């Protein structure tokens, strides 16, 4: 399956290579570099690149390309999913997955990769198992290791690997038993110029941090499970129980994990918790344009809208901007034409606004492409879909755990798109004919 792996940094250097079968020369990456050159953006490098003898499948995470070399037919998603799993593991081990972190921990990285794949086929990818095999580096352990000469490689086969619950190790012990669940929802919406929603969907995840002794068996039930339209589970969740009773029943892995990700059906109307009043105009002939943007909260159930960030890709003709934010800071990059406005928290009494003028290239005609406005924000203690956890029960262990649940709503992507609604008479006419 996976023959070799090359890690390539943003400047195009291979800084790590690992081979699981016979060695593949790193010159195979030249094909990748070629594709990289052709792509205008780093993201535009095609994930699957054929070369005369190999196939390169790459993922880009944290500005590092993970390029896997494949020699024969394999489901590309298999490789992609695995590479992402590698990145997740690195992140889990080193906190960050950067070139520096990987270089500093090259031995651990190598040991990890060695355990994760055997002959190119995934062997152990569960983070709990890996952590039993190879202990994550901590400052304390590094010091102890240097002094005592002990190692960070486990000597026993992880118990999980042989049990029916491969994601949990045995003999977990905590003095404070706690289980925290974060319900995080993201709204993904496109809104047109007039403010009406074109599409809006809510995706949510429940991330858990479970630190419980022994082999607890948890059940988590919702007040309104019908909201969940489509779900995917961590392997620990008993699917049949969910099908039958809409209850999440599981023996949790130890530590952090994503219990569930879900999708709230688009049939339910999604109320976008913020609104934007905007007025961006360019006048024909003049080298000035007006920019006026006001944000306001909408249906937030009294919760504050925080960490608001507005960004907009202004037309190429814009030379510079002279804007005045009522709060927060704004930046405009004259090269990429990207306007970002870090608003912060929206105060319903005093709505934040960004007003001012834009200077256009002299002589250039009025830009015809209208900028899209991209908004990101966070609302604590509210799940926008209204999903509520009913209760969490624990079986199988005697102690009383501390339980906590947190809700949060984020805007994944909200675009205010300047849809051409009725600007072109001919198109509209034609549409009328259709009905």
């Amino acid at each position: 399956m996976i023959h070799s792996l090359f890690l390539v940094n943003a400047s195009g250097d291979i800084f790590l290579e690992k081979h699981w079968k016979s060695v593949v020369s790193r010159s195979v990456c030249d094909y990748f570099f070629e594709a990289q050159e052709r792509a205008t953006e780093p993201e535009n490098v095609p994930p699957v690149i054929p070369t005369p003898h190999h196939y390169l499948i790459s993922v880009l995470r944290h500005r590092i390309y993970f390029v896997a070399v494949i020699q024969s037919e394999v489901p590309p998603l298999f490789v992609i999913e695995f590479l992402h799993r590698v990145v997740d593991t690195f992140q889990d081990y080193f906190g960050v997955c950067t070139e520096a972190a990987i270089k500093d921990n090259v031995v651990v990285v190598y040991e990890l990769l060695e355990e994760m794949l055997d002959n190119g086929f995934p062997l152990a990818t569960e983070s709990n198992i890996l952590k039993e095999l190879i202990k994550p580096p901590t400052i304390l352990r590094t010091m102890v290791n240097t002094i005592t000469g002990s190692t960070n490689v486990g000597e026993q086969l992880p118990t999980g690997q042989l049990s029916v619950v491969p994601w949990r190790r045995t003999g977990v012990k905590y003095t404070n038993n706690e289980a925290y669940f974060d319900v995080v929802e993201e709204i993904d919406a496109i809104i047109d110029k007039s403010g009406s929603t074109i599409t809006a969907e809510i995706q949510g995840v429940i991330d858990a941090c479970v630190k419980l002794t022994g082999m607890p068996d948890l059940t988590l039930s919702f007040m309104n499970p019908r909201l969940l339209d489509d779900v995917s589970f961590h392997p620990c969740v008993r699917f049949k129980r969910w099908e039958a009773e809409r209850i999440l029943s599981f023996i949790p892995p130890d530590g952090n994990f994503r219990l569930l990700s879900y999708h709230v059906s688009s049939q339910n109307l999604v109320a976008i918790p913020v609104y934007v009043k905007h007025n961006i105009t360019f006048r024909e002939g003049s080298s000035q344009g007006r920019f006026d943007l006001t944000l306001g909260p909408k249906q937030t159930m009294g919760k504050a809208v925080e960490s608001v960030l507005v960004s907009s890709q202004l037309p190429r003709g814009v030379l510079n901007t002279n804007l005045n934010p009522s709060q927060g800071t704004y930046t405009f990059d004259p090269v990429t034409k990207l306007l970002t406005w870090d608003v912060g928290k929206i105060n319903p009494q005093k709505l934040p606004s960004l007003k001012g003028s834009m200077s256009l290239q002299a002589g250039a005609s009025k830009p015809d492409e209208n900028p899209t406005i991209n908004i990101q924000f966070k609302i604590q203690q509210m799940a926008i879909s209204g999903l509520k956890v009913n209760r969490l029960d624990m079986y199988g262990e005697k102690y009383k755990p501390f339980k906590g649940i947190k809700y949060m709503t984020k805007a994944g992507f909200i675009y205010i798109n300047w849809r051409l609604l009725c600007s072109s008479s001919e198109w509209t006419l034609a549409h009328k004919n259709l009905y």
Partner: protein
Amino acid sequence: MSTNTLYNDQGGAEAAVEVGQESTPTSSGTAAGFGLFSTDFKKNEDLKEMLESSKESLKLEAMKRIVGLIAKGKNASELFPAVVKNVASKNIELKKLVYVYLVRYAEEQQDLALLSISTFQRALKDPNQLIRASALRVLSSIRVPIIVPIMMLAIKEAATDLSPYVRKTSAHAIQKLYSLDPEQKEQLIEVIEKLLKDKSTLVAGSVVMAFEEVCPDRIDLIHKNYRKLCNLLVDVEEWGQVVIISMLTRYARTQFTSPWKEGATFDENNEKAFYDSEEEKKDQVEAKPYVMDPDHRLLLRNTKPLLQSRNTAVVMSVAQLYWHLAPKHEVSVVTKSLVRLLRSHREVQYIVLQNIATMSIQRKGMFEPYMKSFYVRSTDATHIKTLKLEILTNLANEANISTILREFQTYVKSQDKAFAAATIQAIGRCATNISEVTDTCLNGLVLLLSNRDETVVAESVVVIKKLLQMQPTQHCEIIKHMAKLFDNITVSMARASILWLIGEYCERVPKIAPDVLRKMAKSFTAEEDIVKLQTVNLAAKLYLTNSKQTKLLTQYILNLGKYDQNYDIRDRTRFIRQLIVPNEKSGALSKYARRILLAPKPAPVLESAFKDRDRFQLGTLSHSLNIKATGYLELSDWPAVAPDQSVRNVEVIEPVKEWAPSVGKAKPPKQDDKFYSDSGEDDHEEEEGEEGSESSSSEDSSSSSSDSSSSEESGSEDESDEKSSEESDKSSSESESEQKKKKKTKKAPQKKAKPTTVDSDSDENGNGPVARTSSSSAESSSESESESEDDSDSDSQQRNRGSKSKPKVEVKAKKEVSLLDLDDFSPAPLKAPKSSILSPSLLSDLEGLSLSTVSSTMQVNIPTFGPVKSHELLHHMTGKGLSARYHFPRQPCLYQPNMVAVQVTLTNGSDHSLEEIHIGDRSPASLNLHCFNTIERLEPEASVTVSMGIDFSDSTQAANFQLCTKDDQFSVSIQPAVGELLMPSSMTEQDFCKEQGKLLGMNETSATITLAAENSSSQSLSKQVLSVANVGVVSSSENNIHRFAGRTVSSGALVLVTAESRESSTALLTINTDKSIMASMLLRDLKQALAQA
């Protein structure tokens, strides 16, 4: 080149020096003292010293740095001798790093690598499974051809290891050895065959991977394991799931018939039916509805939950499985999950969108409700945007085109010009596909001609050109409009395209064309080359059609062109002049000038770039690249006639312990499910059924579903005009009720309800007449009737009965129980023994079964081929016309693992039909008996075979019960031969000897017998033994010793039979078991069988 590498090495070494300085102060002094030229040499020297030192920590430090070098791609091969010495180190981390090094460089240093082999050989025998496994891993990763035999041996040994983890490693090693030496294929296939039988979920994925790599064409190896793999699938680790699913997809395409009734791919069956007999066509279709193979259904059912997996590759592979295998109307279950994957990483989106694009060409309906999920976001990467566009175009139809077009208008304005151009192409495709909007699109595109962006304009013109070419009749308006716009358009490509259009259709715009030419003549010298060329073309075409008006203009332009700076234009001008202007020298060509220049040009075809991708299996690399990748395995077409389905039948007998939690067994749904009537209702029931099967206490749902099934049953008479879709729906719902059944059977014994089942009979293909199945209410008997016939073991029987005696029967409300039972058993008619496809192989939902702790000694299987001896149960004279015979099918009982399966064939020899044949009172009262369902009616001369289960409690005491008809009751008894109370158990010779060692002394019974002449050959000897007892053959290394192993059905006690043939046709027969009475009886039977002919 050489200097280059030298330089590289130096650089690397220098870097290493720095690392070294930081971490090991001891080395810094030495390293610092050397000059630039000697560093790399010296550096390695230093590492060598460290490796040879006696300090573990120094060695480890050195290895870490070496691994660092390897990671950077630096060459560290000259350290091989120093490194390899540490292969036997006690320090695990050091050892692991040495392994890393060894695997990397062994190929280059083959001779030295051999030094390490003995270490691994030793480690292969280590009591720690982790060490055994890692030794095998490294040993098999060393790509040195000399050690192939050693590897082979190690793999074979590891394949029978007790630890599933080691067995998994051996499955991985198979692939490695195969790539090292393909010569070993045959032997490796043997190992694969053995490992495929493994029941551990840990092994399943890896061995299928090995299968795919080594012998993907040996589909015959899968047959026996097919059902097991399907059932284990949910518990296999996610990577294994992907591999197994893709293998099963290929398998299913070769083994089942097409479930697609209509659609583009007619399978041959259908076509035949179509042509065979026109007048009977309808009847035939009705008479032979498509019936899905239960195994096919099993696969679909068991993969469905995996759509909820967090692993995108698993979801995708299930989606492709449904796409390639499921009936058309079921495929859409995957839609939601695929759309969910679009929220994953960019690369995942890319692949998923590619697959959706292919799917959406054939099946718009699947994704139409999710159209908005494919709306492009400005942050998407270009290739994602293009794919989304592709899908939106595919989804466009009359109803949604206006929405899509509005969306496209936004995209045209995108700053990503490549994307905007692609959008215009997409609009063009919509225009050609949906005739209602062709004009709208054309108008819109014409508007785009005034766009400032060159790409947009050029693309629009190109698309307009294509559209006009397709239906050139009615758009002189557009050409006129374009001619009007012409003055404002600056992009040369667009200008050229307009000129071409006007030229091509100059006869439709007779007034405008000459005027455009006039304008062009004025500006000719200032134009771009490409425009000039098209001007010349236009002039030539006009000259031919309208020479009166344009003759002078043309000549003027040709003159200008003659002196143009560009030689292309000069050439073109010269050519055109010769072609069109008549003069004395003009050759034969000029006659054809009109036909050359104004030939009708074929319209370009606007179609999806994904059109031809469906030739590849979805989700594959080949599909993604649209190139056949190395190692791509074609998905075969459906066979016209399904191959023999009985090949998948297996005897799966599980140790009793494992059975306990899930007693009921999922027999694959059989085809003859004529008991449902309505697909709508089925859906409902399916849901209900799931709930019922899962929740232990949802009485409501289970009773309601049984209501529905019983009501359906009543209307089951007129089933002949079923449609196929309903059929398959039914089978799916049946499968659900199968699950229910499992659940209920689990409950049944607890309640002491004794439901009965009637078998139904059908022919091989499942198309034949279907015996009616019905159910009787649970019955319980508290009557005791002692009639022990066999005194010799009555003792043990008593004991057994004593221990088995259960609390008093709970008398349940009659109605409720009957509902439950209806629900339980009626929808699952069982196969008749004649067809020999009674397939009891599927065990429950296998939740407990996948435990990887099952050691190989505990596995029980191997089908036996004993002759079927049929015994009389009821003579037709005594039975007033009803006669009954029974035999032991020697298959695990469907109902409870500790029951012996008995098949009873009931024949009506009287001249009137018999009604309500069922089982009445039984004796002894505690007799645990699984009745067959009441046979409502048995016509004269008809016979029916039913199966029942009897728990003989490992004794040969007869089971007495009453066989009742509506009017009569007949006492009958079934007395099993001792050999029928066993089930075969498979074990290796070693295991056999080990177990035998535990059963000596009291537990050993032996006798020397004289063999009959015809039994002296080893083959006939085993045949005789197998015919007497239902045991499994244990492969033996000695020729004269035959070993057989079995377990008692009820208690699972081992019964080991050894037959050692000696000179002068005598043989020593030894039986080892702790059931000493059984042993003596078995010995007696065997003696008898072997001694006489």
